[in-house]
């Protein structure tokens, strides 16, 4: 009898009926999934060559096994669809998911709502790498992403090394070391640019961020990093929830805080550096998406991280659709779109939610 009562009581903590807020709010998950599908469809459909959504769907179906659907697309349309638009949409989804999730992860380990994936110098490092590549190697095709990636990873490694050498790799010392490294690298970048002022335009366009159109190869390049980054961050989502009580209390609960921070920062940096190397600096996604989810769906990282991936992907694919249709055939830099769409949307979310961020 007592056992039965006990079990019934136990369920009160266990059951999702409002008691355990860390459980995934499935309507939001479904909404994110639907949004992503819609964004992908829009990305595949819209563009200078009009291909109706029904034709896109039929073509997708025709490529699936066991389905006997004939394609209605011409050879050219099919090439546009699968060699230009599809890789771009997929890249956009990967970049959006990675930046949003990395932003959420940085906010978690630094207990800082303003942290974004660029906090420890990824942006400055990648910027310097790209600038050097453009100025001294003529922006040659394959070199730029490699240089940007190396710059980004080295910058964060330097920030981490300096932060640790101070004694403890505490949050404040890490962030300050990141500020120092970023300032230093930006100064060098400015110097290089000033010496090679004819390259300002090329560097500037890279800094603003754009989804490359060089086909599937970019997707293949970033995919391993993005997958490793995402799997690691998601695996730590429960531990990141424990960190919400602060470093010292988390430590007293048995979490090796500095080690967790190192692993999560490394994972987030790897993913961010990979996507930044291919697309340049796309701002705002890493801050905006996790916060919007926190405000709307819940602040547990078991909710924030997976939903950030979904909504980040949908958001960036949509932003890219806007970037290449508004002034068609010219393209807006996608970083401009993420900020222009994101800022007002975020302001509305802030105004309409009563739940404060925590």
């Amino acid at each position, binding site marked *: 009898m007592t056992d039965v009562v006990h079990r019934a009581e136990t369920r*009160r903590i266990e059951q999702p009926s409002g008691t355990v807020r860390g459980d995934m709010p499935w309507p939001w998950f479904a909404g994110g999934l639907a949004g992503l599908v819609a964004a992908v469809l829009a990305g595949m459909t819209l563009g200078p060559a009009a291909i109706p959504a029904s034709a896109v769907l039929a073509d997708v179906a025709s490529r699936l096994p066991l389905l006997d659907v004939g394609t209605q697309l011409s050879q050219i349309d099919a090439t546009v669809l699968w060699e230009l638009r599809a890789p771009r949409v997929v890249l956009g989804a990967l970049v959006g998911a990675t930046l949003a999730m990395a932003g959420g992860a940085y906010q978690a380990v630094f207990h800082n709502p303003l942290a974004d994936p660029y906090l420890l110098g990824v942006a400055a490092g990648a910027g310097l790498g790209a600038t050097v590549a453009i100025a001294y190697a003529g922006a040659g095709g394959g070199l730029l992403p490699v240089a940007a990636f190396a710059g980004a990873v080295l910058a964060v490694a330097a920030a981490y090394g300096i932060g640790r050498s101070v004694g403890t790799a505490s949050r404040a010392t890490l962030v300050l070391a990141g500020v120092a490294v970023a300032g230093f690298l930006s100064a060098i970048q400015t110097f290089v640019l000033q010496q090679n002022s004819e390259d300002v335009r090329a560097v500037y366009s890279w800094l603003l961020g754009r989804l490359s159109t060089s086909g599937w190869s970019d997707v293949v390049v970033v995919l391993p990093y993005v997958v490793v980054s995402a799997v690691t961050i998601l*695996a730590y989502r429960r531990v990141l929830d424990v960190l919400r*009580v602060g470093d010292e209390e988390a430590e007293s609960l048995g979490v090796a805080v500095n080690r967790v921070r190192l692993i999560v920062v490394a994972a987030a940096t790897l993913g961010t550096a990979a996507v930044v190397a291919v697309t340049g600096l796309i701002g705002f996604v890493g801050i905006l998406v996790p916060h919007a989810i926190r405000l709307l769906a819940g602040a*547990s990282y078991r909710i924030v991280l997976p939903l950030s991936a979904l909504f980040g992907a949908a958001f960036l694919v949509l932003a890219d659709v806007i970037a290449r249709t508004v002034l068609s055939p010219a393209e807006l830099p996608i970083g401009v779109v993420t900020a222009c769409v994101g800022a007002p949307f975020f302001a509305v979310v802030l105004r309409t939610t009563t739940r*404060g961020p925590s």
Partner: protein
Amino acid sequence: MIRLGTASVRLGGAAVVDGVDLTVESGEWTMLIGRNGAGKTTLMRAVAGLVRYEGSITVEGREVRAVGSRERARTVAMVPQSPQLPADMTVGEYALLGRTPHLGFLGRPGHHDFVAAQDAVESLDLDALAGRRLDALSGGERQRAVLARALAQEAPVLLLDEPTAALDVGRQQEVLELVSSLRSQRNLTVLGAMHDLTLAGQYADRLVLLDSGRVVADGSPDEVLTEERINRHYAASVRVARLGGSPVVLPARHPSLRVPIEETSP
């Protein structure tokens, strides 16, 4: 059991805890007392493995610095002075955080973890509030929630840093009574720090008075709580009365009651 052998903690070059020898037996309740900055909190942080120390500190026979953080958290549970409560977490979820050192790598709680968390929540009379957000709790309820989290750790040693700060007198008694009964139910070893000397003397088996990181008095509340000692080491002016056999420390303002304040450093 907690045993400190000439344990010292240096923070920024200064010895905040300075060669402390102290043994807290299993099941004993000891309260650290002493003025602000005397080293009470730092001493407890050292026992919890949160700060480097020199000398030796063993908990349940094992040197604290040699034990991994998970293992340590299964032995020592800490109730910090001002815990950070994530606003939108529920009491149930928060208690479940206490299970962290018992969880596997990916940290998914199992049935036993839910049972232990529920037990802790019930022990502190919080069942009705299990689904309540932490930012919707009163001060006393919050303190009970933090105790529930510590209890869910199922550690034999409980550290309480100012468990009654910011509570009204009734809530202070409520929390201390709860600790008292939990201690006997679960045979907990309790080491705490408190500023209210009267309450400390009523609940603890033993008081340890710290001044500038050193132990300057150690014994039963009767032995430790003397006017002369408190006035000296707290730079205070108090009178000690007795109520039901235990010492009551009263601040004395009226000139006729004041005791001249002596030099404070030992």
